[in-house]
């Protein structure tokens, strides 16, 4: 046991502790109160936007930033679910549009030894916000699941593409950031099985967003998801709410387990 090392660390920490006065407790509490007030304001704005979404949209358009790392998603009226701002995270999400009917094309072949990639038309998305116990909060998390609704086993490997959509059906600024500290692994989906990823976003405004109205571009209640290596999108009802930090979303690669069942990530 390196006692000497511990002693040195202790000396250094002590010097740092003594290097200046601590801030007054009252100041810290005031900062906490301000955070609480901002959060309440954000919730209020969400409610207001849910009621009067149409009035708000004209202004938000100017604030949009285009997604940088996923293909632009054209508006797709046929795939868009009717906007319902009050929708809770549901266990029975919007069925994927099955316009092509190609999902059953291979049903005749008895066994295919190497399952192919999961195609968008064979997947259904679901979005489940949650909170890790003990986690402090400027950030919110959700499990995003893709379920194989075909009768063929298929494989998902990699990250989702995501586009945020408001109750007005219009895209919101979205910037998907792929986490770098988790390895991508192939997830084999038998019929009915689900692959999971984590989506993390910030709901308190950054300095340059503090005065935006609606806050940070407005409410988000739907996401378009592009499965890895696919080009078409799934519409998923998603109670995302306010997304600040200019639409930054951190996503994990798809995995077998629900992220909410595991421990929270350390660090960023």
């Amino acid at each position: 046991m390196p006692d000497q090392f511990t002693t040195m660390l202790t000396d250094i920490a002590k010097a740092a502790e003594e290097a200046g006065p601590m801030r007054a407790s009252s100041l810290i509490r005031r900062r906490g109160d301000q955070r609480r007030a901002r959060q309440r304001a954000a919730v209020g704005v969400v409610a207001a936007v849910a009621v009067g979404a149409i009035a708000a949209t004209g202004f938000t358009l100017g604030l949009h930033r285009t997604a940088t790392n996923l293909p632009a998603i054209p508006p797709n009226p046929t795939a868009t679910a009717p906007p319902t701002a009050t929708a809770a995270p549901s266990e029975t999400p919007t069925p994927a549009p099955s316009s092509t009917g190609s999902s059953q094309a291979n049903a005749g072949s008895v066994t295919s030894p190497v399952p192919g990639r999961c195609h968008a038309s064979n997947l259904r998305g679901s979005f489940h916000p949650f909170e890790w116990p003990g986690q402090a909060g400027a950030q919110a998390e959700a499990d995003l699941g893709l379920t194989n609704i075909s009768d063929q086993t298929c494989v998902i490997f990699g990250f989702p593409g995501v586009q945020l959509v408001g109750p007005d059906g219009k895209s919101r600024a979205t910037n998907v950031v792929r986490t770098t500290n988790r390895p991508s692994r192939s997830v084999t989906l038998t019929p009915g099985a689900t692959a999971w990823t984590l989506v993390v976003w910030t709901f308190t405004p950054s300095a340059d967003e503090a005065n935006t109205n609606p806050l940070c571009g407005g409410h988000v209640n739907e996401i378009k998801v592009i499965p890895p290596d696919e080009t078409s999108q799934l519409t998923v009802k998603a109670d995302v709410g306010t997304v600040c930090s200019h639409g930054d979303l951190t996503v994990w690669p798809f995995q077998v387990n629900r992220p909410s069942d595991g421990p929270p990530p350390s660090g960023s």
Partner: protein
Amino acid sequence: MFEGESMRETADFDAFYASTSRRVLGQVFMMTGSRAEAEDAVAEAYARAWQQWDKVSGHAAPEAWVRTTAYRISVSTWRKATNRLLAHRRHGQADNVPGLTPDHVALVDALHRIPADQRRVIVLHYYVGMSIDEISQEAGSPVNTVKTRLARARKALASRVSEFADESTSTSGMEARSNA
């Protein structure tokens, strides 16, 4: 919220802050290597603790909660981006902690050169005195990950900290100096 309850909560929080904040600052300083950064992160972490004090005060280990939160804040890239300008201005001033010997400064430098997650494990293990299991819990990382980080950090620090050098060679530098 009732007035009396609110006052009691305030008193609770103030006592918690008074008794723990300096210690947490020292720990987070070791994890970040910058006193200014640590001070900001610790202040923000305590503000968040107050923001949800009913939850945090009922937590099994509120101090660990604040330390973990402060660490997360300090390594958050998001925060780094917004504070880069500020940090730039501060560099070379507030980060000078008086009372450090050249050996101390060299160790702080060495710690600063290893990744933040390794530094955190080193600090929790050797300074805070936590076991691998406890660190695993606090960091939310598997035990093996903690062990790996600790081993890598030891290896990286071996040239600086004689106790971490190859077990077979007898320690010299730091030991000798300390005994003198």
